């Protein structure tokens, strides 16, 4: 317990210390040094999650009876949230380490520290009430950063969207809390999340905030993607498949849209904004929960995109501090003076596009591979997005670092800047080259997320007053459809069912998933599903669709596997024909001579005859 308290203190005190130091007469540069040190401590403390196993299962319960609004626990670190806890501190460290001196201000440093702390707390909790409070607090901190008169218009626009999203979130949670209008409540929360994440058609504020607002606070506000976290915790466990598919479709449209608009931008900040919109939408697209792999892929893109965008936008700010506003229609030059920054920017951009060897590639590979069977449109549109973002990134790279510098400016970077950018790029490459531990972690997290859906669906039949499933059942108003709804929800949510539809499924995994389904249905039977549900389970057992009784599971799965085995067998690559193989006829001499004669063609006349060019 002492260890946990110390750990929480190590996470929470450094930002509070920076905020407190801001009130004393410390110079801005000294306050920045203190912030860098505190952010480093905070990152180290958060990273302890990966070293101390006890911290990965930390749960601090609320005193008293559980309630939906309070959540199951005040603080909870899970497999899913563990890497996210580190993210705000890491972004804070990057922000304070490379912010140009001319743009430093004491209020900004305090605000950054508090924003980092609030987001860290958000990723440590699963309580709807705390999440709503942090949602509102982060809105306030971001809007406060836009307090200067020149940002008045942007502040008004952004405030309209963000306070609107906060209001919708509050309304949605209120509806779920009182247990009426469950579907409406879930939709309200989803719309709030779409607004905050800048998903089409609620995306317009985000590029505007990047372009005409303050880029640093905008990244710190957007990159951790609190909206995605809230979606996973509060909505996905209760959402209907149709709801998820709608959101995924909107997200895919946004991903392509953002990529396309990033290609044609003239302003580097706005291009960054659209690139972020695109990547952020890819994460939401994976939440369609088509498969465990796709969901895990989106979770990886989440981390990768956050780090990459933090680096890219900070690069833009670093260059702006030396050159002023960056027009992408001009080639600014400067590669020779800052090759590390240029290379880092390219690597970070490539990580966003899913280039092989980066963490982004791993995420996109999993996203596409996981969704290709049941939602092929996702795979195809992810490819289109990747192509568009790749073009946008390379265009930015060429514009920002190639060409001849217009003036003899001092463009060299400080050691701290060089180190920070290189460190982010190296992190993404190393994580991409050896991704297996992280992939396994995200796979486990995805399982947890999908299982939570089932648990919540099961809980709905018992006594929870706040489950969306219960609300849905109540809205239907009859007994039989209730059971249909619950069972349908489980079957829809079970990863085993979905994976079971794959042709080449692993039998052991099938068994595991089937057992989980069986357990869930048994739980439902125990909790009051009644005889009718039992009949449904038996019917399912007979058809082999979902589960079997304790004695028949293995046999049923074998039968399923046989039934799902394709009528054909794909030969492996060793069946490829080989012109060198012995079993085949050798190349006829006539063919060899004809291939040689193909190269004889008229000579290009302007070239001297000794150096003939033969088309």
């Amino acid at each position: 317990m002492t260890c946990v308290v110390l750990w929480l203190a190590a996470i929470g005190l450094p930002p509070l210390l920076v905020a407190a130091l801001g009130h004393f007469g410390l110079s801005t540069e000294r306050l920045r040094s203190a912030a860098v040190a505190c952010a480093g401590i905070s990152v180290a403390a958060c990273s302890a999650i990966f070293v101390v196993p006890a911290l990965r299962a930390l749960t601090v319960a609320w005193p008293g009876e559980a309630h939906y609004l309070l959540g199951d626990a005040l603080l909870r670190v899970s497999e899913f949230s563990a890497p996210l806890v580190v993210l705000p501190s890491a972004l804070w460290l990057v922000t304070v380490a490379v912010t140009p001196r001319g743009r430093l201000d004491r209020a900004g440093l305090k605000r950054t520290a508090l924003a980092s702390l609030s987001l860290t707390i958000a990723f440590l909790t699963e309580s709807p009430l705390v999440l709503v409070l942090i949602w509102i607090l982060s809105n306030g901190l971001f809007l406060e950063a836009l307090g200067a008169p020149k940002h008045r218009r942007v502040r008004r626009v952004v405030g309209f969207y963000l306070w609107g999203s906060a209001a919708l979130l509050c309304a949605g949670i209120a509806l779920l809390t009182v247990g009426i209008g469950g579907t409406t409540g879930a939709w309200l929360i989803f719309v709030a999340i779409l607004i905050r994440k800048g998903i089409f058609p609620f995306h317009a504020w985000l590029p505007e905030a990047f372009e005409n607002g303050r880029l640093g606070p905008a990244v710190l506000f957007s990159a951790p993607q609190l909206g995605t976290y809230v979606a996973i915790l509060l909505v996905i466990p209760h959402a209907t498949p149709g709801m998820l598919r709608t959101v995924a479709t909107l997200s895919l449209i946004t991903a392509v849209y953002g990529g396309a608009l990033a290609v044609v931008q003239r302003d580097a900040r706005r291009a960054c904004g659209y690139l972020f919109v695109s990547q952020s939408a890819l994460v939401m697209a994976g939440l369609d929960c088509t498969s465990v792999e796709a969901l895990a892929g989106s979770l990886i893109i989440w981390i990768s995109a956050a780090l990459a965008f933090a680096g890219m936008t900070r690069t833009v700010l670093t260059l702006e501090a030396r050159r002023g506003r960056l027009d992408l229609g001009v080639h600014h030059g400067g590669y020779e003076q800052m090759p590390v920054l240029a290379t880092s920017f390219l690597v970070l951009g490539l990580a966003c596009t899913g280039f092989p060897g980066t963490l982004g590639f791993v995420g996109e590979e999993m996203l596409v591979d996981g969704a290709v069977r049941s939602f092929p449109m996702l795979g195809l549109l992810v490819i289109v997005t990747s192509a568009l973002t790749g073009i946008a990134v390379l265009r930015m790279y060429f514009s920002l670092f190639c060409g001849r510098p217009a003036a003899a400016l001092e463009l060299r970077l400080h050691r701290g800047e060089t180190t920070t950018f290189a460190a982010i790029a190296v992190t993404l490459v190393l994580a991409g080259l050896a991704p297996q531990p992280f992939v396994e972690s995200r796979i486990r997290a995805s399982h947890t997320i999908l299982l939570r859906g089932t648990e919540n669906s099961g809980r709905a039949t018992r006594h929870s007053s706040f489950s969306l499933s219960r609300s849905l059942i109540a809205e239907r108003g009859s007994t039989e459809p209730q059971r249909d709804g619950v069972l349908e929800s489980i079957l829809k949510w079970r990863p085993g069912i979905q994976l079971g539809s794959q042709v080449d499924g692993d039998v052991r995994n099938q068994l595991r998933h089937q057992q989980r389904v069986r357990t869930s249905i048994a739980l439902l039977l125990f909790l009051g599903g009644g005889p009718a549900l039992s009949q449904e389970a038996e019917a399912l057992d007979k058809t082999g669709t979902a589960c079997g009784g304790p004695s028949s599971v293995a046999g049923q799965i074998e039968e399923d596997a046989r039934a799902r085995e394709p009528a054909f067998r794909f030969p492996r690559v060793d069946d490829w024909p080989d012109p060198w193989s012995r079993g085949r006829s050798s190349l006829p001499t006539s063919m060899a001579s004809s291939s040689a004669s193909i190269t004889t063609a008229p000579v290009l006349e302007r070239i001297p005859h000794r150096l003939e060019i033969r088309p």
Partner: protein
Amino acid sequence: MNLPSAVLSASVLIMFVSPLVLLGLLSLAAAYPHRFSEKVVGRWTQLALVVGLAAAITGLTDYLTTGSDPVVISYGTWFSFGHGSFAVEFVADGLSLGFAALALSICGVVSSFSFRYLHREPGFHRYFIQFSMFVLGITLVALAGTIEVLFAGWELIGLSSALLVGFFHERRAPVVNALRVFVVYRISDAAMLGAAILLHHWAGSGSLSQLFSSSPSSVSVLDSRQVLTIAALLIVAVSGKSALLPFSGWLPRAMEGPTPSSAVYYGALSIHAGCFLLLRAEPLLAQSDGARVLAALLGLSTTIYATIAARVQTDVKSALSFASLTQVGIIVVEIALGFRWVAFIHIIGHVCFRVLQFLRAPNILHDLHDIENRIGGHIDVAHDDVAPLRRWTRGLYLAALERGFVDSLLDRFAVDPFCRIVRRLDGLDRVLSGGRHGAGEGP
């Protein structure tokens, strides 16, 4: 499935690892350019390529002497997830080992040339990093046993190609042309992955590597429309990479890069990577007459276009690039007609011949002066182009000068509409966000 011999397995591993290690070392060296001289970089590159080539020759010899069927060599997985994984899997057969040996030998020759050609060039280290990235990419493409490995190599080739086109980045033209090349490559990449995804979805295979399976049963579950769709996407991918019509416009633009890179990319290996992919996918192509006809028509039209355009180019590298394209078109026709052997031998011969021409191109004036000094006078070159032209010949001449208006047509019917639509959307976004109306400028 045949088990690979230890020699073959080790050879393929070395072929793959040597450029990978080289890339890592050169990347580290680039961080400290003053500590690692040009000589060190040159030696590392040559050592890696000699080792890779020796491994390729050893592997090919071993395969030819001991094996008869293609061998799949698996080195485990890069990462695995649920039911999927990124298998580091290579296929060793005559085609893959032969192409890899060819690629490594050509890269060795060109790296040796580059070492002297780029002496004291400011971007010396950068060039060799991008060159090693290309070596790794072409090796992966040659040996790929899965679509993921193929895609990784395909991407490495594309990126290194674009970066090398923009090598002299202080000038605007190379950078603009590099972006243009990259755009075409991205379209090509997207088409290839799209083909893989559709095959995965329609055929239900757990492994995308089956895209290139030779057995008729592999496509038996697909109807003719599906096979045609997949093959057509594949042909688009090949067209982008090998500069077939309508993507041919990027090829002369790519000549902005250093001559050695032009030699290895557009005279030799990169431009043939598409043909190699088509050779691999020929069994799939054979299942659809429509796809074969499409490929043959593309190849034929590209050949006719390139041979006409080559005759009016005023710089030697552009002329050589179109000359390469002419042969690439013929190779595609050969593959479409099912002459796989002819196509492969044609690739080998053309690669060697064209690399020599490209590498000699910078010396062409020097050679000309040398010849004139030796013969003691000017070489009398006939100028047929001053002869009076008929109307249709004049039109053809103008079209050839404009490189068939390929770029203008693409700009008019694809790029401009895309940019116009997207800019309007951007304007709409600005209105929605209460900002000023107006939009940026496209690439």
